[in-house]
């Protein structure tokens, strides 16, 4: 049974930031939603409430950095680049301020629909010069994020998980590293964020079906470890599948296709994720299935590569972990 960790960011940030008075916790009116409410209550002098004013928050953070502080910005991912994109570039990215942006609700992890779902954040953030981009995929990675992000000499965007977070890994996140979760020779499967947990639901069924999968988990989109991908990509027989909680354009799938084309490799690529579409509000299980990037969609993609049906039924996959709509691990049902 997989270990479920309750609000790992909450204690991680508190432990980390309370040791360095130069760190300031900024929140755009989403303090409990970003799990920094207990930090606010215990360390009010390091907390700066910015209200619902993201344009100001970005430039204000730039100013704090210019007076020697290290702002950690907390809000939903969408609010860090959609409205204040200009400020993100001029006040944070261009001058390489040491600002750590914690963006919550990645992709379809929220029933709050288009306005809350950051489905294009990786594609945008990774094309911004000077920006480092990290996505957390489990509780251990959430527990590493403050230390890893804060070591970066420049701005960092972190795609954050909150609430009940599964523990998949037992080693901390190392910037630009790529985790090898399973070795194999037929197919290279590359997943990130919540898609790694989702893909693992198919692991046993695929082993039973005799499919040899090389499974990688990516957490650092920039600086991206192209060499490692290239090295592992070269030897797989059938092709590559990427699975991301994001648009397939601009994110992980695109990054892999860039490596394939750059190196002239004869590899087929199937990109699972949102295919040039916005999503609507719903549960993670419903949305990943509806938009075709759940574990069953992965099975179907593998069938395409091997050219035959595997006769794996949905019930053969490990049970999906269902999160309650209302729980003590979340501030509101978002």
């Amino acid at each position: 049974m997989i270990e479920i960790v309750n609000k790992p960011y909450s204690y991680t940030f508190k432990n980390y930031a309370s040791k360095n008075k130069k760190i300031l916790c900024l929140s755009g009116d989403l303090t409990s939603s970003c799990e920094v409410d207990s930090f606010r209550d215990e360390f009010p002098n390091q907390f700066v409430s910015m209200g619902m004013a993201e344009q100001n928050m970005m430039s204000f953070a730039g100013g704090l950095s210019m007076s020697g502080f290290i702002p950690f910005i907390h809000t939903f991912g969408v609010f860090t680049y959609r409205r204040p994109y200009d400020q993100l570039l001029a006040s944070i990215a261009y001058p390489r301020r040491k600002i750590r942006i914690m963006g919550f609700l990645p992709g379809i992890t929220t029933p709050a629909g288009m306005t809350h779902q950051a489905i294009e954040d990786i594609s945008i953030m990774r094309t911004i010069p000077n920006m480092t981009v990290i996505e957390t995929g489990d509780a251990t990675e959430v527990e590493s994020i403050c230390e890893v992000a804060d070591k970066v000499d420049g701005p960092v965007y972190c795609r954050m998980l909150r609430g009940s977070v599964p523990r998949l890994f037992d080693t901390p996140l190392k910037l630009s590293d790529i985790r090898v979760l399973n070795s194999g020779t037929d197919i290279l499967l590359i997943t990130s964020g919540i898609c790694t947990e989702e893909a693992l639901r198919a692991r046993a069924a695929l082993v039973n079906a005799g499919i040899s999968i090389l499974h990688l988990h990516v957490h650092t989109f920039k600086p991206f470890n192209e060499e490692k991908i290239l090295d592992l990509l070269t030897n797989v027989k059938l092709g590559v599948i990427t699975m991301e909680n994001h648009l397939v354009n601009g994110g992980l799938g695109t990054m892999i296709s860039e490596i394939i084309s750059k190196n002239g490799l004869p590899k087929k690529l199937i990109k699972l994720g949102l295919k040039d579409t916005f999503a609507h509000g719903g549960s993670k299980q419903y949305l990943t299935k509806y938009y075709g990037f759940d574990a069953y969609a992965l099975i179907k993609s593998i069938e395409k590569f091997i050219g035959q049906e595997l006769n794996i039924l949905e019930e053969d996959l490990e049970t999906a972990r269902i999160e309650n709509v209302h729980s003590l691990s979340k501030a509101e049902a978002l």
Partner: protein
Amino acid sequence: MREKNKLNSEDIALGIRRRVFEHCIKNNGAYLSQACSSAEQLAWLYNEALNIGDSIMPSIPETFSGVPHINNKNYKTGAGYNGPISSEYDRFIFAPAHYALVAYATLIEVGRMAPEGLSMFNQDGSSVEIIGAEHSPGMEMHNGTLGIGLSTAAGIAYGRKLNKDSGDTCVFMSDGELQEGQIWEALQVSVYYKLDNLWAIVDVNEQQVDGAMSDVLDIGNIQKKINSFGAKCIEIDGHDIEAMRQAKNEKHKDQPLIILARTSPYKGMQYLKKRFPRLHYVRFKSEEERSKMNLEISKELGIDPIKY
């Protein structure tokens, strides 16, 4: 290098106008009306109001040495022309980056930059850019996107309160950027956090790119708006340096201070009035226009016509 206050601010303002005018005639165009409206403010800021140290940068600006990048270890902003960053000194943010030419002329007049610096203006490979960049003399950040200056200064001021710095943070702004919503977000936050170590002077020349603000997007009574946001807002004649001194001395405990300097976009160059409302960037359509303006305005500025 000239000593602070050795010249009077009025003379510096005249020098700024003359220098920007000369540049405009020689280069067939410039942000000229901005020199008319803001010369007294910038002269007063650098000559009297700002508590800043001597420039720590070469008086002839270095050439462009790359944008901020992890591999560019020698990157420097242009802030050093405003002296070192230190707890007792004021920090100065120059918000309307298209006023850069006026800023450079000011740096020359107050002895922080060599006159040769202006010949590098808008030349390829130069740091003396047409829209003030972070690496341009006197600048510390990119303000080409209007509206981010006040928020940034508020962040600096907040940090400086935590650091218990005695120095203030000052922003030079223009009125057009008050149309940006971010300015009002910045005011909300500055008032909420009682940032009385933050102050701004706004060049209210009532002009923007498309013409007079009243025709483009009238923003009504600025003083009333800013006061109702809870900041201390004082309106003065922006060509009256004594009025600036008094405004700066107004008590503003627990409040940021915003000085609205009401100005004329053709102050000192009345001939420019003919162009109203096309004043944002002055360039000449014909040689006749150029030479006529050269004769008329040089007379007003008390100098010989510019040779070009």
